[in-house]
């Protein structure tokens, strides 16, 4: 069991561009934290720094309050599952599993017992005599997890462990990982570019971009209160729609939000940004609308927006409707929005329609991308 902390950690592979910049993150004992972001955002670098495969340029990494910057990987008692599994191809499953125990100089009887226990836990007992190339992707994945867990590490690291699997298997193993983590209670850091994995697995999720931590919080917090447009777009499937908006406020605390040609009036108190919104009178801002915020039928507090449908993707339980807001400005045509409509959506493409939104569901972002909150 262990607590992990990154304190102001930076990593430069190249003097000009940091792979990781002033990264700070604390992981509690037994907590499951997911690092998520697009490729090249520094998430794998953070993981490799914690594993000891790379050295930090500045800052400190702590495991159980001990600075481990200069501690070699084997002394950190961390275990890692690699993206391509990195199973030793010339060894059997048994030998792969026993290797870390041999390195730790565990006695032969004890290590045999430990290997068999882990093999049983991960349903690998039948496969112990096989070599990695005789295994399916999912089986290799389980062996990789077994090898990481076998010597009872204090920190468990996973680097995109599901990215080489097909969608069905991915969902199944995702559930297995969540169950294992719950049962074993290991402090876990999990790296992925897939926000679905992040949302479903993490107790907390850290969203990263361009080497910087954007926001950390519970999946629900990230979804409900994104700190900036990057997080808003990244979390959710599809992510939040972001579009230009003109804000005008009246003296009586009423504000008018202009989206394209259409205006919505509401009181500042109703706004997500609260009365702070009054400071932005007359400014061009960014509006954020979740695809779930659009409704095809009128509803209480709903305000109608005229839209033009561009495309409809029918997915069975829901439809994704791509659309534009009519606008006088040609440039705004680029802002294609998407709505998630339950069930089948019957309007044809290139037709006009009305979607209803609750004005309180509109997120407001300043031009630097930061959210405006009360």
């Amino acid at each position, binding site marked *: 069991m262990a607590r992990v902390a990154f304190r102001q950690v930076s990593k430069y592979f190249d003097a000009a561009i940091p792979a990781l910049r002033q990264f700070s993150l604390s992981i509690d004992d037994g907590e499951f934290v997911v690092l998520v972001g697009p490729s090249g955002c520094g998430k794998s670098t953070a993981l490799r720094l914690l594993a000891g495969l790379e050295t930090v340029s500045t800052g400190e990494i702590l495991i159980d309050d001990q600075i481990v910057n200069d501690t070699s990987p*084997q002394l950190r008692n961390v275990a890692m599952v*690699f*993206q*391509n599994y990195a199973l*030793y*191809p010339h060894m059997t499953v048994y030998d792969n599993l026993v290797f870390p125990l041999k*390195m*730790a100089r565990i006695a032969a009887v004890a290590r045999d017992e430990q290997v068999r226990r882990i093999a049983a836990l991960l349903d690998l007992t039948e496969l112990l005599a096989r070599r990695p190339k005789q295994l399916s992707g999912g089986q290799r994945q389980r062996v990789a997890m077994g090898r990481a867990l076998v*010597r009872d590490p204090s920190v468990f690291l996973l680097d995109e462990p599901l990215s080489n699997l097909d969608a069905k298997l991915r969902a199944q193993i995702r559930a297995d990982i969540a169950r294992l983590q719950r049962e074993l209670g290991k402090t876990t850091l999990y790296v992925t570019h897939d926000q679905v994995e992040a949302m479903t697995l993490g107790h907390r999720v850290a969203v990263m971009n361009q080497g910087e931590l954007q926001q950390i919080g519970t999946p629900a917090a990230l979804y409900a209160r994104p700190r900036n447009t990057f997080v808003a777009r990244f979390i959710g499937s599809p992510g939040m729609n972001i579009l230009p908006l003109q804000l005008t406020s009246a003296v009586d605390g009423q504000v008018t939000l202009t989206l394209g040609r259409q205006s919505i009036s509401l009181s500042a108190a109703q706004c997500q940004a609260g009365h702070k919104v009054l400071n932005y009178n007359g400014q061009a801002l960014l509006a954020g609308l979740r695809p779930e915020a659009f409704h095809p039928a009128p509803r209480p507090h709903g305000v109608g927006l005229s839209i033009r449908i561009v495309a409809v993707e029918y997915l069975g339980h829901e439809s994704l409707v791509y659309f534009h807001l009519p606008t006088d400005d040609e440039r705004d045509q680029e802002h294609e929005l998407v709505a998630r409509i339950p069930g089948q959506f019957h309007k044809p493409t290139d037709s006009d329609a009305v979607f209803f939104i609750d004005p309180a569901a509109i997120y407001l972002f300043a031009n630097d991308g930061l959210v405006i909150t009360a």
Partner: protein
Amino acid sequence: MSRPRLFTTVLVYVLLFSLALMFIVPIVMMLAGSFKADARVLLEAGSWRGYLPADMGLQNYRDVFERVPFLRYLLNSVFISTTIVVAGLLVNSLAGYALARLRWPGRDSLLLGVIALMIIPLEAIAVPLFYEVTVLGWRDTYLVQIIPFIANAFSIYLFYAFFIDLPEALEEAARIDGAGPWRIFFSIVVPNARPVFATVAILTFLTQWGAFLWPLMVTHSEDVRPLPLGIAAFYTLPPLQWGDIFAFGVMMVIPVLFIFVFFQHWFVKGVATTGIKG
């Protein structure tokens, strides 16, 4: 198969067959000649009979053992070549691994140096090297035939090229699993690099088995001289008996043939992987 396709196929096979013939003819002649009386070898050299075995006696083989200490030469050759191969595999693989994986100042220039060294033939440095071993007092020993050939730029480069392509995640996994650098090299890297080890072993062995110039320069006693110098002895011992020379040649080729057939599987794989990816 259409007519033009058939024509091309036949043409290709005729070409391939002719090429194969070019390489096999001298070997057949050697083999046939090794069983013939010396006088007959020269007499039939220009005709097709030269490629047919006749007499079928083993007299030439007996002569070889009588006229020169063949077993001594063979033992010397085996000892020198195998020692160079074994020591060379260790030294050159470690050097290639260091170049491929470790970071240290001056590594890139050293790699460049290794590549540059590949183009310098032994003949170019034979004389200075000769002076060096003379000063060291190594002449006419096994040592002088072994030490200069253990480290080899071409072998280092072959290993380097192979290791650069080996997925680094394996070694990283071993590091996290608690293995030190030596353990990683011998337990993880070497077992996954068998093709390149076989390739380097065969290439080194072939080169050393046929080494002639250097042993000629630095040895004079039969106690340490290898096979190629033994065969040369026949040219200086009159009368010039071609049958004996061919018999010697056959016996010299057999071990090489055996090793090649034995390692062929790995060898081909090694050349393919290092050749294409490296």
